């Protein structure tokens, strides 16, 4: 697209730094200069750890997510997970439920479980590219609960990571008053550092998604008389259903 005013601006930056134009590239070995192979092998190491320490990491996220304010339920099987999701929805008295279109729903039979409670979930996609964005937006704001899978979870901080993309809208986890995220064993990272290693590796391999959301509990504010209140603009209640 367009870049405006850069040359003059950078000229003044160089002037302020006391450098002549066209100064040599900085030594950025500790930042960007890591060879692509290094990043790739670090990422491979992260993925190995994710699978080898899957049980321990799942224990860790169970604890840290609860600390961060998620309501956490852990179940043995995908079927149990679907039942828990349906239970949460029915206990909340939800009538409008929206879910993303992600792979998780192929193994966790959420639709069936909800139907058995008399709830028919909508799927938060727009069909033809861009055809029905306003309707999707309306649906998200009108829904009581949004249900998604999880791309990664982060044990350090009790975080769920979502990359909006085809089948996964931004709003499905934001606009409804409650959000339920379903996490599979094997998708947990130890800390933020590993997340960004994977992101960098994906970037070097030809691209990352258009955006990424780290969600670590309900929406909060402390802006009125320094009192913490949940649910200002985002969901006031978030549930993490852990399978494994």
């Amino acid at each position, binding site marked *: 697209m367009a870049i405006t005013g850069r040359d003059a601006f950078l000229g003044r930056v160089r002037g302020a*730094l006391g450098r002549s134009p066209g100064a040599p590239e900085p030594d950025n070995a500790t930042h960007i200069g890591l060879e692509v192979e290094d990043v790739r092998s670090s990422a491979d190491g992260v993925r190995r750890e994710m699978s080898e320490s899957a049980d321990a990491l799942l224990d860790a996220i169970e604890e840290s997510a609860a600390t961060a304010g998620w309501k956490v339920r852990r179940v043995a099987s995908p079927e149990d997970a679907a039942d828990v999701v349906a239970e949460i929805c029915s206990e909340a008295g939800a009538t409008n439920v929206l879910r993303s279109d992600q792979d998780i729903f192929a193994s966790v039979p959420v639709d069936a479980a909800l139907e058995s409670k008399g709830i028919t979930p909508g799927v938060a996609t727009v069909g033809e590219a861009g055809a029905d964005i306003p309707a999707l937006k309306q649906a998200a704001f009108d829904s009581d609960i949004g249900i998604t899978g999880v791309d990664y979870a982060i044990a350090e901080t009790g975080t769920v990571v979502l990359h909006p993309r085809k089948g996964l809208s931004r709003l499905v986890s934001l606009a409804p008053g409650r959000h339920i995220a379903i996490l599979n064993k094997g998708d947990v990272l130890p800390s933020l*550092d590993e997340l960004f290693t994977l992101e960098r590796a994906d970037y070097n391999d030809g691209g990352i998604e258009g955006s990424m959301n780290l969600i670590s509990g309900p929406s909060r504010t402390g802006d009125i008389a*320094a009192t913490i209140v949940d649910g200002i603009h985002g969901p006031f209640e978030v549930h993490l259903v852990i399978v494994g």
Partner: protein
Amino acid sequence: MLPTTDRFKKGAKETLADPVIQMSMEAVYTGFHTNRQSAAADTEAWDEQRDRGRAIKEHTIENLDYYLEMLTDKIDANGGNVFFAEDSVEATEYILNLARDRDVKTVIKSKSMVSEEMSLAHEMEAVGIEAVETDLGEYIIQLAGEAPYHIIAPAIHKSQDQVAEMFSEVTGTDPGQTPEELTTTARGMLRETFQRADMSVTGVNFAVAESGSIVLVTNEGNGRMCTSIPRVHVAVMGMEKIVPSMQDLGMMLRILIRSATGQKISSYVTMINGPRRDEEEDGPEEFHLVIVDNGRMKLLADPKLREALYCLRCGACLNACPVYRKVGGHSYGWVYPGPIGAVVSPVMSGLKQGKDLPFASSLCGACREVCPVRIDIPNMLLHLRQQVVEGPPEEGSVGRIERLGWKAWRFGNMKSSRFRAGGKMANLLGRPFARKGMFRRLPPPLSGWTRSRDLPITASSPFRDRFKKRKSNSSRGGE
């Protein structure tokens, strides 16, 4: 924002006399600061992380041109637009033109201190665009028509009753609502606005040069609303908010958020890599990044002030500062209050007008102690004090009497005989006016002291006399 940095003393006096604000400001220490201390104690290798964070910022700022170029090339490749603005007027003009071009009626704003520099919401309203602050604290001060009081908690000075009354005037709700009820009211009001917004303006917590990403750190979710719904998303950024790579983000997020609120992480961290792609379900169609100078070049150009650009805008220095806690955010007279504000506000908006600000500190060092990137604020304040005294008149000045006073002080301290004589003379002249060795009232400038404290008279027998006597006694063999 037009600076009123010359009214520090007046603002301080008013704030000190306001019991509601004094009580509200306690939360800065008992809440934010205490939570930050706990988080620092609980985080492994906290000091090493701060060292590393500082090293990253130092490297980036020293090579700012390189990283700005990289960042903007990547944004361009991602399908975004970049506008470089020399000052807030240029930045505002770009955004207003864009809004007009895109037929924008309603703008939603997420937290952006740079947009406060621009008074952007005000400028938009002036041309008939509805501009709504969506961060609850910013929303409250927008209702009140005030400037932000704190970098991350803009309405911290308002009591619950004051907020309830303001909401009541807008919505007709009960003026005695609790924070929970007020939050629900605000949620409803702003939810409706989110849905019909045409354009959003957000800040930027970090921009990642390597990938052309911008990162927003929020707890409320308004940042996510702003970057999900409107057709056009404009992000406004101070030129210094860059980190080289995504790898740096993990650590920077860790030290930023724990320093700001003591949380391990905020409820939401959002990374944006350009406008939405065709196959996505929602998201803005257009992305614009406005990179702003507005006086930052002055900080960059002075090696002793350059580290002010490392600032992550976490507010930890405000929370630790006993001066800020007493005088409040408005006393500093521009966008940035507290210790970091005492440096950047006068430098960016004019040192002559803001010449009191570098002196409005006891140099206690609490700010430096809590800064996630170890910015040496006291040192920068001392440097600015020197500039005010020695610099050209455009950069402020001190009175003639004070200059003469320090010359006299110098004279008296160059020789111990003069020093001793000075003390003796003060003792002799002052004795008739002192009661039990203390003065209750003295003429200016010492009246500043005696307004609230007694001041002792100089000793008739100073230490150096006593020591001499002691030595001669002992050499005479007596005790």
